[in-house]
Structure formats: C-alpha cells, structure tokens
C-alpha cells in the first residue's frame, strides 16, 4: 500500500486507540454547535427572516458549516510546530518521505474519522430537534460546494503548516496559533453567515482567505450564489492557495537551513 495511504490508515487506527480523547472532542463540538444553533433559533422570528435568512436557511447553514468543519478543519498538522521544536523532525529528514505529504495524510486519516462522527451527530440532532432544513437538489451545485470544500481543506492545511513553521525560530508556536483560531472562528463564518455583515465589511472579507473555509462552501450549497459569483469565489480561494503555498515553500527552505545549521 502506498506509504501515504498507510499513514492515513495508521492515523485512523491511532484515533480509535485514543477513542476517549476523540469522543470527548466530539462532545465538545456538539456543545459548540448547540450553542450557535439555539442562538439563531431564538433570534429568527417564526415565519420571518434575519437579513434574508429564514429559519430553514440559517439552521441549514449552522449545521452545514459544522459538517464542512469536519472536512476542512479536522487535522493533526497543528502538531508540526512541536515536532520541529522537540527535534523529532530529524527522524523525517533522515527518511525518503515528503514531510508535507506525510502530515497531509495524517490529516486525511483524522478527517475521515471526524466526518464519520459529524454525520452521525447531525443525523442524531436532526432526529432529536427536527430542525427545518433546506435540501439542495441541484447535483451540480452540490458538486461545486464539494470542490469548494476541498479547496477549503487545502487552504486550512497550508495555514497549519505556516503556523507550525514558526517552530523553526521560536519555542512558542501556540500563541500565534491562538490568534489564528480566534480570527478563524469569526471570519470563517462558523458563528454567523458572513453576508449579514454590513456590505462594505463583507466586500473586504470576500478578499480574505478565511471566508472560503466555511462560509463559501455552505453559501454555494444554499443555492444563493449565481454561477459567476461561484466561479469568482473559487478563483479567489485558489489564488490564496497558491499564495500561501508559495509562502510555505520559502519559509520551509529558510527553516530547514536554520534547523540544519544549529541542529536539535
């Protein structure tokens, strides 16, 4: 079996071995989801809407971003910083394996488990809470939403690496990551759909990468974007992927040079 596939498989089994940890994590996710869910349930009037979002649309948005989160955000690659710091990176430099692909594979293993649970949880919530939701029927739109989710996945992965590379120069990898997570929590749209913000703010956000991690894929799914808007969004997010990838390459090269200069 291909080595990277094996890494993903091992990560899956590792998650099974760490099941208590994992289940606790999923419980936390459910609590966070419920908080947002009930907030919007309370705010949106019964047959009315909040800035264009009816109950079905908003609740679909909230539940949907939760699913996209398990696709795009579930990861292990936040561990890169510590691995560089404690010198375990050496173990990989000595092997003929691509470090990025290795971590990407670990992420994939993690995502698989998270997606499985997310689907189970959402099904359970659906049966318990009976939320009115919106089902997209256009296959092509669903397809575009999936494409956008994959771009979101890659984008977030690259961000994780970028933050992890700080480990080459500083033992403190968690502080920058903390700020990143806070920014992500608001600007990716997990708390609210970004287009409820004032137009000028929203236009600015459309240029940022965060928008395309959760908000954009869901917005496509909700069928509220025109074809042009979808293509433009995909284009912008793809550009961001290239930009961040480029940064990653440069900083990695510098980092490795520093690492192999000083050793760990």
């Amino acid at each position: 079996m291909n080595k990277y596939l094996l890494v993903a498989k091992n990560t899956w089994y590792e998650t099974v071995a760490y099941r208590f940890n994992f289940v606790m994590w999923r419980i936390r996710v459910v609590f966070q989801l419920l908080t947002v869910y009930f907030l919007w349930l309370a705010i949106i009037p019964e047959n009315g809407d909040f800035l264009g979002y009816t109950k079905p649309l908003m609740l679909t948005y909230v539940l949907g971003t939760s699913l996209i989160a398990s696709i795009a955000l579930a990861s292990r690659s936040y561990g890169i910083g510590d691995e560089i710091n404690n010198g375990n990176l050496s173990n990989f430099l000595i092997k003929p394996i691509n470090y990025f692909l290795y971590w990407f594979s670990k992420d994939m293993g993690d995502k698989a488990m998270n997606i499985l649970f997310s689907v189970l949880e959402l099904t359970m919530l659906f049966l318990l809470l009976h939320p009115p939701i919106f089902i997209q029927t256009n296959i092509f739109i669903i397809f575009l939403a999936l494409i956008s989710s994959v771009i979101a996945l890659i984008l977030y992965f690259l961000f994780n690496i970028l933050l992890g590379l700080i480990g080459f120069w500083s033992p403190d990898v968690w502080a920058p990551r903390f700020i990143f997570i806070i920014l992500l929590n608001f600007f990716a749209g997990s708390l609210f759909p970004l287009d409820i913000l004032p137009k000028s703010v929203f236009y600015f956000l459309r240029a940022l990468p965060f928008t395309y991690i959760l908000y954009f894929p869901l917005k496509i799914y909700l069928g509220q974007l025109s074809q042009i808007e979808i293509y433009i969004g995909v284009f912008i997010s793809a550009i961001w992927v290239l930009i961040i990838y480029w940064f990653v390459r440069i900083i990695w090269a510098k980092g490795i040079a520093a690492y192999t200069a000083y050793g760990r």
Partner: protein
Amino acid sequence: MVGKYLKIWWTMTRIASQIAFVSRFGAIIFILGKILRFAFFLLFLLLLISKTKVIVGYEIWQVILFFATFNLIDTVVQFFLREVYRFRSYVVSGDFDYFLIKPISPLFRSLFGGSDVLDISMLLISVGFVIMSIFKIGDISLSGVLVYLLLILNAFLIALTFHIFILVVGILTTEVDNTLWLYRDITQMGRLPIDIYKEPIRGILTFILPVGIMMTFPPKSLMGLLSIQSVMIALVVSTVLLYVSLKCWKFAISRYASASS
C-alpha cells in the same frame, strides 16, 4: 494560616508571571487574542441587536451585561485557577507526588498558584463593561448590586467545584485537558442569557450543569428579575457541589497511585 497561604499564592503568582514574561512575545499575543475574542463577539451582538432590537426580550445593554458578566466570571476563574491547566503534566510526570509530600494542601497547590498577571487586563475590560452596562440600564438598586456581587462570588465557587472535579478525573485517569475544555465549552453557552435555549436544555443548564446559575442569575438579579427563591437555590447548589467535590477529592487522593516512569 490564611496569611501563609496568601503569601505562598503571591510567590507562586510572581514566579508564574516571570515565566510568562520570558516568553513575552507569546504572553502578549495571548492577551491580544483574548481581547479580540471579546471584541468580536461583542460586535456580533451589536450586529444582531441592530437588526432585531431584542434577543429573547432583552435589549442591547442588558444583553451586553450578560456577556460582560460571563466574561468577568470566566476571567476571574481563569486567573485564579490557571494552574489546573498545567495539572496533567504534573500527574503524568509524577511531580504530583511532590505536592502530596509538602506541608501545603495539595488541593490548594493544584488549583492556585499559576496566575498570570496579564489576565488582569481582560478582567479590567470586563469590569468596565459591566459598570457601563449597569449605568446604561439604569434603575439599579444598591441591594441589586450586592446580590449581583454575591452571585458572582457564588459563580466562582461553582466554577471552583467544577475544577476540583476536573482534578479528580485527572488523578484517576490522567485525562485533564479534554474535561477542562469541555467545561469551557459548556460554560460558553452562558455567554447569552440561557433563556434562548429551549427546554429541556434550559433546565439542564440550570440544574444539572449549573451554567444558568453561574452566568445568567447574577445579571438577572441585578435587573430585578430574579426571585429570592432562585438566589437561595443558587447558594444551596454551590454549597452542595462544594461538599461533593471535596469528598471526591479525598477519594481520589486515597486512590492515587503514582505514575510509573
């Protein structure tokens, strides 16, 4: 005795702050992050209110009071109980054994002594917003403020018991971080008045996981919306929880087997 513990707490806090200062860059970033988090959610609330005028019957400054109170309690709790976040490393490495040997209550040591002075900035911001919203709401009596402060203290006590339970789980299973973060996620539900949650969630959040008692009761009492019975219930709940948690702690200590190398 109290003086001794106070002195020890102060020394440990000084050390913890020095350690934080060594990674000065990181410490400042963390504070910045917390302030941002507060600011973003506040802006979100303002956005909501600007369109809906009320959230479950509460107007803007009332909603802000709920959020600011949550932040105040949350920050106070984190400030004093920061050491719990390090507990796992102590148990796993076996350092916890040293706690048990020293002539200081290991419970005290495990709970307090890791305070980060930088958290004070967030504390001040919360206090500032609480005061601001109190003035904006107006129509506040002195007794209301006193009950408010009493219930804040009560909330801290409940939080304390939760942290003790977390320590107990940590001793018995070496699992700390997840339960700690679970506590944070559950209490986060109190950022807004728990009125927004439907039953049975609201009931659960009031009596079983007393987030409602911690976060929603204080502002409600300030606004004269809380009955005397509720205040009584709040105090009883915290007392009972405290008693149970201390019993559990004693149990955990007696079951403790030190970690192998």
